[in-house]
């Protein structure tokens, strides 16, 4: 214990040596991260590890999610207006926001509309001088269909920006809270372009965020210091250090030894011991994800809703939760997780009744049914062991006389083949939310546009489609909530999936860490966190 305290004290004191914090009381939080970021420009990447190291510490967006929730709050935009037809979003920008001063850049002006236009036009306009810099593949911008959605991003004046859309899109605001929408300094970009080193913008990031990058050693450590002029007030922590530690057991040992304050992704098997450790607090929350098994509703007999319902009744979800999630999961009844607004509590899940299931199949004339169950070859938060899950489902199916064969492919192939409209079999897969909007689950995974793509059930059901399309264009949140709640009822009646589970996220932190909140998006945000 004494050694632990000494070590953390030493690390805190180390900030004097390392990142030049002033004063003897410099506070340094060490986060044992799980891997190296792919880079420091969040617009290029889709991995949470990269966002943790970049957008979530270094940058701000026009709007951001309130810490620990999926609610949108003002950030670099103080207010915004939406035109009546829902195609024009006018943002009124915050004044007096300072960019980081780094070794290579000293800003001469505050954040303004030019920075917003630069950050989006770089991704949107293929002829923009920065579009191709550093490889220029903007995965999330494309993935969220922004090129189809956006018509233009215009500067109205220094502190007003207008986004013009091709069609109304209620989730637009939530999209702008995503990591790819981080705001970069146009002034820095211009300077680097003039110096002939435009890629420096992506390697040595300059943002307006609460922390600024000091140093990065690949696979070893990332060091940040607090942005002294942060618009929302300087962070309580003076320094932030990411000690990159890929192995979960080793992260736990480091946490115990006091070599770090916060660790992500513990082994489920270690959680019980962590909870007993008086030096560690284990925070927990349902993840923003859903794991499911999608039938191919285009192929008989899975085109019959009663057959799908019968199969759903045959699956013992509690057994799956115990064996596959080892307590780190919660049974899913809806296609969206409970942490998302409009989650319909009133929906009743299919009960586990194998006898009833068997009878239902007989009534539908389905006998000696043979089916394939696709098991993902990778581990995901929404499905830590797909093979095991498939085996349990196989056993459940055998109970009602259905012969299930388990198939699997390499991950890339799996994703590709499972999209096929004529695919044979039910696919185990899942989804982690991007922007906290129900549309990001319901339209992407179950909308008619997704058939042959992200809609693995190949399910296009007009009453459901009408509801989600209407919710997409209405800006009133209460009305949208009502529509999505109805959509969940229709989903449950039609059963294109067997909803399996939402993961439960555990976040072990040392007891001296104050106000750390689990981010529903799976991120790690250290602004607002303090050390006792």
């Amino acid at each position, binding site marked *: 214990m004494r050694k632990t305290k000494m070590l953390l004290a030493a690390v805190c004191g*180390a900030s004097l040596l390392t990142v030049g914090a002033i004063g003897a009381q410099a506070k340094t939080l060490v986060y044992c991260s799980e891997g190296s970021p792919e880079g420091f420009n969040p617009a290029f990447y889709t991995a949470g590890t990269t966002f943790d190291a970049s957008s979530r510490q270094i940058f701000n967006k026009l709007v951001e999610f309130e810490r620990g929730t999926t609610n949108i709050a003002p950030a670099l935009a103080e207010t915004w207006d939406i035109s009546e037809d829902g195609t024009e979003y006018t943002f009124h920008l915050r004044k007096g926001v300072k960019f980081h001063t780094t070794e290579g850049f000293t800003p001469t002006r505050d954040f303004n509309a030019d920075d917003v236009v630069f950050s989006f036009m770089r991704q949107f306009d293929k002829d923009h001088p920065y579009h191709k810099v550093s490889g220029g593949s903007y995965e999330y911008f494309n993935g969220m269909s922004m090129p189809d959605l956006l018509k233009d991003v215009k500067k109205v004046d220094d502190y007003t920006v207008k986004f013009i859309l091709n069609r109304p899109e209620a989730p637009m605001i939530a999209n702008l809270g995503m990591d790819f929408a981080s705001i970069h300094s146009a002034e820095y970009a211009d300077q680097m372009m003039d110096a002939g080193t435009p*890629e420096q913008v992506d390697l040595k990031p300059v943002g307006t965020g609460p922390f600024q990058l000091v140093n990065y050693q690949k696979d070893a450590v990332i060091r940040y210091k607090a942005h002294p002029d942060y618009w929302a007030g300087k962070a309580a922590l003076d320094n932030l250090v990411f000690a990159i530690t890929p192995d979960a057991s080793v992260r736990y*040992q480091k946490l115990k030894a006091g070599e770090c304050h916060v660790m992500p992704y513990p082994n489920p098997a270690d959680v019980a011991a962590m909870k007993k450790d008086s030096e560690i607090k284990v925070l927990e929350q349902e993840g923003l994800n859903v794991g499911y098994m999608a039938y191919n509703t285009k192929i008989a007999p899975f085109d019959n809703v009663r057959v799908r319902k019968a199969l759903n009744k045959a699956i013992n979800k509690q057994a799956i939760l115990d064996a596959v999630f080892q307590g780190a999961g919660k049974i899913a009844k809806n296609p969206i997780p409970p942490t998302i607004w409009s989650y319909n509590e009133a929906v009743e899940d299919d009960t586990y009744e194998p006898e009833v299931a068997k009878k239902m199949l007989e009534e539908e004339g389905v006998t000696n049914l043979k089916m394939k169950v696709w098991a993902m070859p990778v581990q995901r938060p929404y499905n830590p062991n797909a093979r095991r899950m498939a085996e349990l489902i196989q056993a459940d199916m055998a109970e009602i006389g259905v012969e299930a064969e388990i198939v699997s492919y*390499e*991950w*890339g192939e799996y994703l590709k083949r499972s999209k096929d409209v004529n695919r044979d079999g039910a696919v185990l897969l899942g989804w982690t939310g991007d922007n906290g909007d129900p549309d990001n689950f319901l339209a992407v995974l179950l909308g008619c546009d997704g058939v042959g793509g*992200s809609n693995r059930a190949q399910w296009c059901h007009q009453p459901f489609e009408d509801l989600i399309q209407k919710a997409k264009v209405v800006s009133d949140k209460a009305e949208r909530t009502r529509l999505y709640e109805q959509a969940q009822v229709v989903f449950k009646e039609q059963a294109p999936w067997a909803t399996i589970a939402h993961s439960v996220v555990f976040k072990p932190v040392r007891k001296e860490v104050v106000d750390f909140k689990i981010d529903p998006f799976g991120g790690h945000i250290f602004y607002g966190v303090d050390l006792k």
Partner: protein
Amino acid sequence: MLSYILRKLGVIIPTFFGVTLVAFVFIRLLPGDPVLLMAGERGMSDERHAAMMAEFGYDKPILVQYGIYLKDLFSGDFGTSIITKQPVLKEFFTLFPATMELSVVAIFIAVAVGLPAGMIAATKRRSFFDHAVMTGALTGYSMPIFWWGLLLIIFFSGILGWTPVSGRISLLYYFEPVTGFMLIDSLLSGQAGAFRSALSHLILPSVVLATIPLAVIARQTRSAMLEVLSMDYVRTAKAKGLGHGRVIGMHALRNAMIPVITVIGLQVGVLFAGAILTETIFSWPGIGKWMVDSIFRRDYPSVQGGLLLIAAMVMIVNLVVDVLYGFINPQIRHTD
């Protein structure tokens, strides 16, 4: 001697080309492509997939791709990682010193302990020491690295608190790398305690990495020594009245060293393989983990470049071993 070295070099050059081909084909034989993996569950349209494949040049026939790769290689361009967008050569040489440092210390431990242990076991055949060394070697050889590493961390770092859990140096110390070798850079930094911290961080990972080579070297030394000790010239040397130490040191060991050096040379390849796991457990920022990540992400340029550079290192070490043979046993350089 020069012609001997030239002959060896003559073998290395075609081998190098062979490796470029193997590295190039191997990663493409794995199912899935980097673009699909980048998109993940989110997926992407077929048009965008095709556009991105074309952007990376992966839409061209494989032979054309190989030709471009070779052409770039000859101009010193190992390609750019499609994930990090950084030149492969730069990434490799940023991480390589960490692996090199760990491997050198590990092979030093393996030789420093394995060689004398094997020698003593051979000279004291069937003694308690012999049995202990052989049992220890078998255990070390069979030990899964991952499990062994975690066990040492839990015991020495977790329970006893003697060694740091992972990393290369305490977060207390920060200095820009000069050589990339932490032991040297910590000395150059002039910061009090930095060298000690770097050394303490090296102990567990190097012991873990040394375990298998140590076991192999001990066993090989023992059997080579036993064979040599039964030779007539050793008996003659003894009959001539030479002292025990002189017989072992001058006559037996020198001849037993040839198979032992072969094994040490081969262990360099084993070290790189072991480094992958060791680096993951100990959060050691070396090329092992980088290679694994690159393979999982189908980062073709990084895998190709990494494999080629590692193979080049192993070939160089084996060339050195071959040259050493020549020095130790002149018969080899004349007959090989």
